[in-house]
């Protein structure tokens, strides 16, 4: 195991534990404004979608141009299927089939 990675993971664990334990000790029963709750929700959504975009289309700092059309189409189809069916596994299954099949069809 890589030492830097392990230490980073331990740091991530500590960061996360703080957000879990501090309210248990000092903020029990505290109600936060609904607007703050909504802001944190939006923040989680934007961070998640940003990570989805970067991890799917980039390797390091390099944009993977050749693979972008098939991955983009597969992601769009997966998201639409999940949205309409309200089933994430179904959307993912469709996306997986397309992401494997599209590069072969586009050759």
């Amino acid at each position, binding site marked *: 195991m890589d030492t830097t990675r392990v230490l980073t*993971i331990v740091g*991530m664990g500590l960061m996360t534990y703080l957000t879990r*334990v501090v309210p248990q000790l000092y903020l029990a029963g505290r109600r936060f404004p609904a607007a703050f709750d909504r802001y944190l929700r939006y923040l989680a959504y934007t961070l998640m*979608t940003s990570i989805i975009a970067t991890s799917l289309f980039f390797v390091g700092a390099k*944009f993977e141009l050749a693979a972008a059309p098939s991955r983009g189409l597969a992601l769009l189809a997966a998201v639409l299927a999940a949205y309409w069916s*309200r089933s994430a596994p179904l959307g993912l299954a469709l996306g997986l089939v397309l992401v494997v099949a599209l590069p072969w069809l586009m050759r």
Partner: protein
Amino acid sequence: MVNRITRASFLAGAKAAVPIWIAFIPTSFAMGIAAKVHGLALGEIVLMSMLVYAGPAQFAALEPLATGRPVLQILATTFLINLRFLIMSAAIAAYFRGAKRVRLLFGSQFISASSFIIPFTHFQKQAAGSAAADVAENSGEHNLRYFLGVGLTSFVVWVTGSAVGYWAALGVPAGFDEALKFILPGYFACMLAVEIRERTAQWISAASFFAALLGMMLNPNWGWLVTALVIATAGWMAEKWIRRES
């Protein structure tokens, strides 16, 4: 007698957690596969699942860890994504009054979005159904046991699932690289598509997706993080302003 009640509370929590286990199996499995694809060691993903125990934050860290991005960026992202635990933890802590501090310190590790909802609604129903005078003296301790029944068992499923997923990825034949690369971002995108039904949140998420690509091109280390923060803040402020106007 008290021991029997607390054991029963734990088992009741574990029984209520079955839907979470079912949801955790594919997600943790995909996490293990993605960790393998990104070149992490089995020990590293197991350690991450144990210490972080939060799908979105773990997913966010895979690429930066693999490509050696700044540690500060990884920690900042982890903190921002997991800030929502503050609200969940504060809300559920009200039901643990009187529980031993050392057990609270232990139990806190198992708070996650999934393991929060079931106990929280259970405690709310319980509180609504009983007059204050009827509440048992040790209700904080019993509630904590119930929560541990949900949280601890789900945690075990999560950690095991990520290890099994990693192991399974070792056996995937060559030629399926695209599927392996797609599996985790695809799954999280589908989960968000199912979860986000509000129009404002949908627009904010879509805008953030495209802005992140631009941000990444401008600055591979911090660009996407800045665009995510800016769009969340701008969208939230715009929504507040529109609500005030109407």
